[in-house]
């Protein structure tokens, strides 16, 4: 075939033309997303209208916000001076005066460095869980948290000595992260005792004694588990550790304290409030409910009748009862069952019952993860000759937990927000408790939106970070790639 001399078709491609106006750019986007039909157009217009109305009302209120006043009446005068007598303005001056109560409750002001340091250490204690053994990212995280902590410490007015202590602690952790990142896991293991000591204070020997109990438990367990099996060894270890905690510990720590008195001024739990209280209850309950929840989930799938019945009974009972009921039990009923004059702290009671409550939900989430695993995984574990606990630890749990991450995190977020319910038993949670206290001050009585917005923004930041973090974890663990 020869090329025809008559060009019946183009020999070269036409240059690409811009798509027509209605098929590109903003017009196309608007058409596709907002005005694709008459129904959608109406909804769009209605939506725009409501956004406009909200902004029209809220914007002046936000713009005329007053930061510098000593009472609501002064705020109103300042707004009137700024924008005329009929204008409304936010009175953020209340936040300026009371922010410390929203964050720390009645924690002694000169001790604010302790909760700040504890909070920073908590984030660092999470690092090995997230990035076990990764040097660069661990160093980065410790560094950033350290810098933020120093800023926060200066913000709450810490004296130089305690600032140095906090910086020293972080420098040490940074060094560990640089030299041996896998050793950072000790920060995580020690954090509960350190956090308790920082927040409540008292003699340093108390938390050390409590830790020693866990060390005893670990030692007994590792000695006996070969001979007696995992469960029995754990039981024996628990009994020995309990004997240490209940009988021996106080005697030893009292002697040690006399010998070497060291500690921080002790702070009563009734001085805890605001977000400090929400975090103490939330974080403790979250941390404690995960292992409990795993055990309950395994118990519910167990072949042993007693274990199964107890687990099912516990889970169904707890899930069938509202959290408020549990809080009232903590606050009112427990006191009747305990011997008179036992000073069993209300916050501790609340933490225990919130933990039980959360563990039932976590157990069901994890059971969902277990149920989603194909049977072959269990059979493969059996075929490899692994015993029950080895199979759980090496094969089943890593996969089941991966599947359960979204559910677990949403339980955690829910639990953290539920901590505001403790206001019903008279604890000073940030949303209701502290707000009520602020409003009881005649200077701020009648203030309505400002405390709610302030607390809401902080809750949003915390919960949003948690949810982003869970998405990040999912991507990192690629749970859909099975």
């Amino acid at each position, binding site marked *: 075939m020869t090329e025809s001399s008559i060009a019946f078709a183009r020999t070269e491609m036409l240059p690409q033309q811009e798509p027509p106006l209605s098929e590109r750019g903003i017009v196309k986007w608007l058409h596709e997303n907002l005005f694709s039909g008459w129904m959608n157009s109406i909804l769009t217009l209605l939506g725009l209208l409501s956004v406009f109305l909200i902004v029209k009302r809220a914007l002046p209120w936000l713009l005329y916000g007053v930061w510098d006043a000593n009472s609501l009446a002064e705020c109103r005068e300042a707004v009137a001076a700024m924008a005329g007598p009929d204008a409304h303005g936010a009175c953020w001056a209340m936040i300026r005066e009371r922010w410390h*109560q929203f964050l720390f409750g009645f924690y002694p002001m000169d001790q604010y460095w302790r909760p700040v340091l504890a909070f920073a250490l908590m984030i660092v204690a999470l690092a090995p869980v997230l990035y076990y053994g990764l040097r660069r990212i661990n160093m980065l995280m410790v560094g950033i948290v350290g810098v933020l902590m120093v800023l926060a410490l200066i913000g709450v007015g810490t004296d130089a000595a305690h600032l140095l202590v906090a910086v020293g602690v972080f420098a040490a952790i940074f060094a560990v992260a640089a030299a041996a990142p896998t050793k950072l896991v000790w920060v995580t293991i020690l954090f509960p005792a350190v956090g308790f000591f920082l927040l409540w204070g008292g003699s340093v020997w108390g938390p050390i004694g409590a830790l020693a109990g866990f060390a005893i438990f670990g030692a007994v367990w590792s000695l006996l588990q070969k001979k007696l099996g995992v469960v029995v060894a754990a039981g024996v270890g628990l009994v020995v550790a309990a004997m240490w905690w209940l009988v021996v510990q106080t005697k030893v720590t009292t002697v040690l304290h006399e010998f070497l008195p060291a500690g921080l001024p002790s702070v009563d739990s009734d001085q805890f409030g605001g977000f400090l209280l929400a975090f103490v209850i939330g974080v403790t309950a979250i941390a404690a409910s995960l292992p409990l929840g795993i055990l309950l989930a395994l118990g519910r799938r167990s072949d042993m009748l007693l274990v199964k019945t107890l687990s099912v009974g516990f889970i169904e009972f707890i899930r069938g009862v509202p959290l408020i009921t549990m809080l009232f039990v903590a*606050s009112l009923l427990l006191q009747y069952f305990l011997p008179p004059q036992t000073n069993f702290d209300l916050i501790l009671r609340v933490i225990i019952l919130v933990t039980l409550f959360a563990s039932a939900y976590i157990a069901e989430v994890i059971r969902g993860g277990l149920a989603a695993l194909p049977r072959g995984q269990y059979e493969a574990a059996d075929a490899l000759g692994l015993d029950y606990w080895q199979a759980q630890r090496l094969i089943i749990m890593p996969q089941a937990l991966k599947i359960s991450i979204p559910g677990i995190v949403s339980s955690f977020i829910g639990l953290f927000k539920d901590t505001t319910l403790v206001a019903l038993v008279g604890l000073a949670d940030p949303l209701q408790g502290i707000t009520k206290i602020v409003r009881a001050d005649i200077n701020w009585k*009648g203030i309505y939106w400002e405390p709610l917005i302030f607390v809401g923004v902080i809750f949003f930041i915390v919960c949003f970070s948690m949810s982003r973090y869970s998405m990040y974890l999912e991507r990192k663990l690629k749970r859909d790639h099975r």
Partner: protein
Amino acid sequence: MKRSVFLGTLAGAALLAGYASAATLDDVKARGVLNCGVNTGLTGFGAPDATGNYTGFDVAICKAVAAAVLGDASKVKYTPTTGETRFTALASGEVDMLARNSTWTYSRDNDLKLDFVAVNYYDGQGFMVKKDLGVASAKELDGATVCIQTGTTTELNLADFFKENNITYTPVTVADDAEAQRQYVAGACDAFTTDASGLAATRATLPDAENHIILPEIISKEPLGPVVRHGDNNWGDIVRWTFYALVAAEEMGITSANVEEVAGSTQNPEVKRLLGLEGDLGAMMGLDKDWGKRAIAASGNYGEIFAANIGESTPIGLARGLNALWTQGGLQYAPPFR
């Protein structure tokens, strides 16, 4: 049925708790701290300030009792209690006494096995309306919308009042005082009803207080006072007579400023007995003889406490009214110290 079973259980448990720790005085002395149940936050009556110190009209009673029993008004552990938890906290022994605007009623006194030892504030339910509504009496509120907190005695009182006067109203239920104030200001209701002391505090903080009036009708009796557990009469007497010492001190003109001076110069035998210069009134209750002096020195006599926390010189600006001394037309009356 359910309610009576619950109350019965509560009462039984309270009795047990009462027997188990009969001598509250000994417990308090051994502990060195008075556990006092207070409100989670009520303007003028009890709330922590910006530095976390509790102040208020009710809180002053806690301080006076601590001063009388322990010799130090600061040795008080304040336990914030809500409307739901207050009586159980007391019955279970978590607090030694309540000083928390609780209304003395028959069933609380008898069914809940509590003892109201005195009345430190005579309150009553009132109405606040906007002036331009043109209403001068609560009986003219026919057809009005009324903002009211749910689950309180005020709700029942309101229903009774309107039924009795054969007029109608539409309730706008709200969860708490702050919301009520907000709804009222926003115009969601014509009238706002709660205890008169609360109305005065709310009105004081409105941007246009002069445009709102509190109607003259008081439709209920709300005698508020400190509460102790049933069954420990000695402790009840201590709280009761500590309060009466404050009232008597006002009658006799003893203030926190002049108590030492009066003690040095007085010739009045009753003042002498009250201040422990004569007789042994303290020992009869298991206290030392200076208990009355310390109670008065803690935050002043009844009139001083009233003036400092809720009186006319404060922004809340409550008049003494029923809470004036009996000699000035009020109801505050202390039995003789003899």
